[in-house]
């Protein structure tokens, strides 16, 4: 390891760059080793860890999952019952989805109660709200993919709730549903939203979020 790093470092002079990125003190009020109650400052980092796990397990689930009404249910039960560690990987992804929403919400509460959203961090709060909606969107679209009864009816109900939005509701629900009934087109849409569009947005907003955190530093509680 050390040798390989040296080889690369001699040629690319990475150390100063890494120092700049990683070598910065965590202020005592945000460091759980120094201040007990500072564990609430870890929620953002834990959210990120959970999201990394979701990306990893999700990528592996795609080895077997087929987003078609004919095969979705059978491919999921194949994963769970026949593939080695299939239950582990799919349950990790499922529990991880709940954990992601939970941790992001706790993180938001931390930011709220330490009043960290105030000037100059308003923009990062806005980026955070986008992140919250993206994570919930991932949860909603992912829920349909197993194509079992619970998935089907949860999506039916969820999209009917969306129909309640004044004026645009009907259009939005139909656009997401790909028609007036939950079916083949809903499944392929939700699949692509779940594995391409939302993860792409998530990465963009995470980059902006982390950039702003580093640029502005962690706030002191007011």
């Amino acid at each position: 390891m050390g040798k390989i790093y040296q080889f690369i470092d001699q040629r690319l002079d990475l150390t100063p760059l890494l120092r700049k990125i990683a070598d910065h003190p965590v202020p005592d009020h945000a460091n759980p080793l120094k201040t007990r109650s500072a564990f609430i400052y870890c929620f953002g980092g834990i959210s990120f860890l959970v999201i990394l796990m979701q990306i990893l397990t999700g990528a592996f689930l795609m080895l077997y999952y087929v987003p078609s009404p004919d095969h979705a249910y059978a491919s999921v039960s194949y994963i769970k019952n026949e593939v080695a560690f299939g239950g582990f990987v799919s349950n990790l992804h499922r529990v991880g989805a709940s954990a992601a929403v939970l941790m992001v919400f706790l993180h938001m509460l931390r930011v709220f109660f330490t009043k960290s959203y105030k000037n100059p961090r308003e923009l990062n709060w806005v980026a955070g709200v986008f992140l919250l909606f993206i994570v919930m969107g991932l949860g909603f679209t992912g829920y349909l993919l197993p194509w079992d009864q619970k998935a089907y009816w949860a999506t039916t109900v969820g999209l009917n709730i969306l129909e309640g939005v004044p004026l645009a509701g009907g259009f939005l629900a139909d656009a997401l549903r790909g028609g007036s009934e939950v079916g083949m087109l809903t499944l392929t849409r939700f699949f692509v939203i779940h594995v391409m569009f939302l993860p792409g947005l998530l990465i963009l907003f995470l980059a902006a979020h982390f950039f702003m955190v580093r640029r502005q530093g962690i706030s002191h509680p007011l």
Partner: protein
Amino acid sequence: MSLCEKQTTSSRRGFLANGIKAVVAFFGLGLGIPLLGFSLSPTRGRDRHEDWIPLIALAELKDSRPTKVTYQYERKDGWTTVATRKMAFIVQNGDGAFTVISNRCPHLGCGVDWDATANQFRCPCHGGVFDLQGRVLEGPPPRPLTQLASKVEDGSIFIREA
């Protein structure tokens, strides 16, 4: 803090670095092993079809030229069952004796066909040529065409791939 306080912070740094390594190892192995098993599990064990598959009635064998037959069996493919169709040649050796030869080229797996004018099996892909018994005459195939285990029962020919 940081660089000028090297003396006092280095042991703590070492401790933290080891801690980080332990966490990375925990996640690396705890996820790496299951994910590797997850990815590779369907590739364990080649699925061989063990049953005898009916080919053709003995009475239908005509002249002494190789008779091309198509056979079919059901195979598990992921979570589905699919019909696999393959081809073989029945080569008669006189006195009712015969061998069944797979049409799979032993080079890279293309399907060979019988060339009636040259009296040879020819592979369309890279010029493999075999004689009536399946022995290599020309080209890159490293071994003869595969003979399939066969038997006669109730006047019909059966083969087995295993």
